[in-house]
């Protein structure tokens, strides 16, 4: 009976999520990982002759995606181009200085590096985001992580538990946290085992962690490389920049832990597929790239430092 007309306020803007920018970034990283999976599958399907082509594609696409990533977080265009080219250059230099037979090892190392990159990113996003997204992303990444080498997967799983476990435990207990964090990786494992039991060979050709023993080891001389970490200058520079600009967070802590634990765990003789120096180098380099992209330096000097250290890393990549 009594319909009171309601004055409408000016049509206000639809509320949008605050972390949309992170969503786009995470999509980029996941896209990189999926691309890696696809390329790896393609490599197996097409044989060794296509490996150089695939590698070139990988370098190009990964550098482009990093370029887009840097641009999305506000890095000036010229610096963005420089850094992306530098990253591509490091890979190209390494590949030129090593035999073609080692391309496979390089690709596997790149996969590990992407995985570490994505995980560090998620840890950082988790700090600024409410809700379950970063946890879900970490859990899903871990399930893709069974393509990476076991030490890295173990490291990342431990870091994930450390980052998310306590918060989730407060909400629902141990079982709750464990189920949320580890279900995807367990389901993936069960899935692969089921496929193998069903004699579905096609999918099982990938570098699954659980399937490590089925693959030929990488060229033995990689093991005899001197213990050097060409990525160290770049890592140290990026970390120092973050430290001095007071931008450090859980991603930096996770990165440091990764640097300490990964070589130890990776070189353990009981590992089914140990980490190679190349794997560690690549993981460190991409981890540092991730830290740089998380919150790029605002002034020229730190950018110059980062670029110079990256160039020195490229020099060291000659092997």
């Amino acid at each position, binding site marked *: *009976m009594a319909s*009171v007309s309601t004055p*409408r306020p000016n*049509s206000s803007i639809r509320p949008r999520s605050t972390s949309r920018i992170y969503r786009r970034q995470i999509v980029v990283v996941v896209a990189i990982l999926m691309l890696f999976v696809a390329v790896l599958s393609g490599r197996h399907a097409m044989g060794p002759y296509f490996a150089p082509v695939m590698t070139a594609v990988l370098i190009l696409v990964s550098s482009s995606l990093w370029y887009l990533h840097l641009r999305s977080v506000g890095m000036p265009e010229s610096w963005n181009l420089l850094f992306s080219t530098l990253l591509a250059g490091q890979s190209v230099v390494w590949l030129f200085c090593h035999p073609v037979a080692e391309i496979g090892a390089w690709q596997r190392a790149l996969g590990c590096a992407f995985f570490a990159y994505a995980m560090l990113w998620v840890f950082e996003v988790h700090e600024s985001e409410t809700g379950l997204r970063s946890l879900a992303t970490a859990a899903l990444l871990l399930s893709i992580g069974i393509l990476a080498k076991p030490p890295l997967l173990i490291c990342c799983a431990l870091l994930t538990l450390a980052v998310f476990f306590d918060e989730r435990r407060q909400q629902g207990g141990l079982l*709750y946290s464990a189920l*949320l964090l580890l279900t995807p990786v367990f389901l993936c494992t069960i899935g692969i085992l089921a496929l193998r039991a069903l004699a579905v060979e096609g999918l099982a050709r990938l570098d699954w962690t659980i399937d490590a023993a089925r693959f030929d080891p990488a060229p033995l001389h990689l093991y005899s490389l001197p213990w050097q970490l060409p990525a160290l200058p770049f890592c140290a520079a990026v970390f120092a920049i973050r430290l001095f600009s007071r931008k450090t967070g859980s991603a930096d802590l996770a990165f440091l832990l990764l640097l300490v634990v990964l070589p130890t765990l990776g070189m353990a003789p009981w590992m089914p597929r140990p980490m190679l120096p190349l794997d560690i180098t690549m993981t460190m380099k991409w981890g540092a790239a991730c830290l740089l992209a998380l919150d790029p330096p605002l002034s020229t000097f730190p950018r110059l430092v980062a670029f110079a250290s990256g160039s020195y890393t490229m020099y060291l990549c000659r092997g």
Partner: protein
Amino acid sequence: MSAPSPAHIVQIGKPSPVDDALAQNRQPHPRLQIGRLLVDAGLITETQLAEALRKQVEWGSKLGDTILGLGWVKPLDFYQLLARQLALDFVNLLQHPADESLFDKREYADYAQHLYLPWRRVDGILWVATADPLSPALARRWAGRADVRFAVTSKFDIIWDLQRVAGAQFSEEAVLSLAELDPEHSARTVVTQNQKWWLVGFPLLLLISTCMFPLTTLIVLNTLINGLLFCSFVFRTCLCWMSCEENIGIAIQPEEVAALHDADLPLYTVLVPMYKEPTVLPILVAALRRMDYPKSKLDIKLVLEEDDHETIDAAKLLGLPANFEIVRVPQSLPRTKPKACNYALRFARGEYLTIYDAEDKPEPDQLKKVVVAFRKLGDDAACIQAHLNYFNVEENWLTRMFTLEYSLWFDMFLPALDELRVPIPLGGTSNHFDLAKLRQVGAWDPFNVTEDADLGLRFAAMGYHVGVVNSVTYEEANAHLGNWIRQRSRWLKGYIQTWLVNMRHPVNLFRSVGWKGFFSFQLFVGGCILSGLIYPFLVFPFVVWLLAGKNMMQALFPAPVLMISMANLIIGNSCLIYISMLAVAKRRHAALLPYALTVPGYWALQSVAAYKGLWQLITNPFYWEKTAHGISKYTKAELIHSAAID
């Protein structure tokens, strides 16, 4: 409270044969306000009057509406006093019905909206019975007519009498209006001629191809179906991943609700379609009484079938306040909820309208949140869907799985679809409409058994926005398997109907909802149907392997076929398990997390329902599988709780 004492009957105008029908109280009280009259008549106390006056200002309503909304006075008593205050006659339409020859069919809607009826013509004077004599609409309609006199009547009498006269027409319109005005979007024709050609031609082609190239056909078909299914799984996972964010969709904060002034709130119509659900009615009534919304601005309609005497009687026994009305839907086919809603829509007077099921428990601030949401979204918003969940979660495995599924659907899928601005298949209840836009699109399709899903699509096709607001309505989950399968088969049948209706002209659909909307419709609605129907075929190889071993399986399924379907089975189930976990984690039902691991079993049940729905679509397309409510032990507890609160 006693009835008002009889006053002197004062003749107004010439004595006429209808005088005996006019009410007794013609004593004018020009200086007395209605509140004072009510107090003098002993119908309310001074304290109640003071409270009502305070509420009147706060709510921005008329004092009469305020008092009626609070349920302090019986409507009949009130309208008699109103007539006395305005020096008008009171007429009881139940005893002295209107002369239907005076009704103008073109004005039926106006009668229902503005609560008046041409009652009788006596000596050249047209008597108009009205429940709102001071309504500006009434004054406008009859301006300059010297031959018109007004008499007051109860709004219930008007609704009753209008239904008596116009019920058959309203019922026919409720069934046929969409089918006649927009046949392209009506499910009255289940399959069009073109679709029939496809339905015959495609299997025939498949048969020929299978005879000629059995292996290739099998591989191509398998790849195609599994590819679609895989995309559907990935799409759903992406939707869930988007919804992991806390404030996705339309997140209305408590401060925004608190900032609303009750006086600025619009009239809100609440439709409660029911059929043979007398037991659960008190739950909804209690929930609606608890709503944080001015009672004078609630236009609540219990929509009951006219032969459902038990629910009608139960509603009468509840002693409902005057903002509750009973709308009796005449018997006609199809006997569906959308038809009942279309019928009741004729009587809706609000600016917004929502639908609740009989056992629903909406959160008290839901209506206010929706008002804020509509104001935020602007003019292109046509509908706001609230989240649905269950109050009997812990009853058994089925209710847990149902809760898990609803959490997934309403907390994860729909908000993400809203974020993507693609068509949203609305849920069964708690969808809030802008009434004008609802009428504009032709309201519900009475031939579609998931009329809400269809409506969501139609809104999107007309360029309207359907949003999802962060407010929850709790319902009773099906605790019995048979009942669950009946309900689910209806849903899946309705989804197939919706898909068939919208795919009559795929190009038109593509143009109207855009590429995003088109593909999301295929992956979400189409994927839902496909996954239900195809699930047994995915599981079959696995069962063969379990029962007969690897060799038998390899003999039956070529390697590529096996690999694709097994990968899909594993990936699909893994995705569903994990996104179900995320959904209940977001809803903070931690205890349900382990149950997500049993989702594959629940999907097998979905498949049973999907085939039942498909069969019913062929044999009895418009049959509405009634879901029994009030059978949960938790519902009984809710009833006791509601009674205690009341």
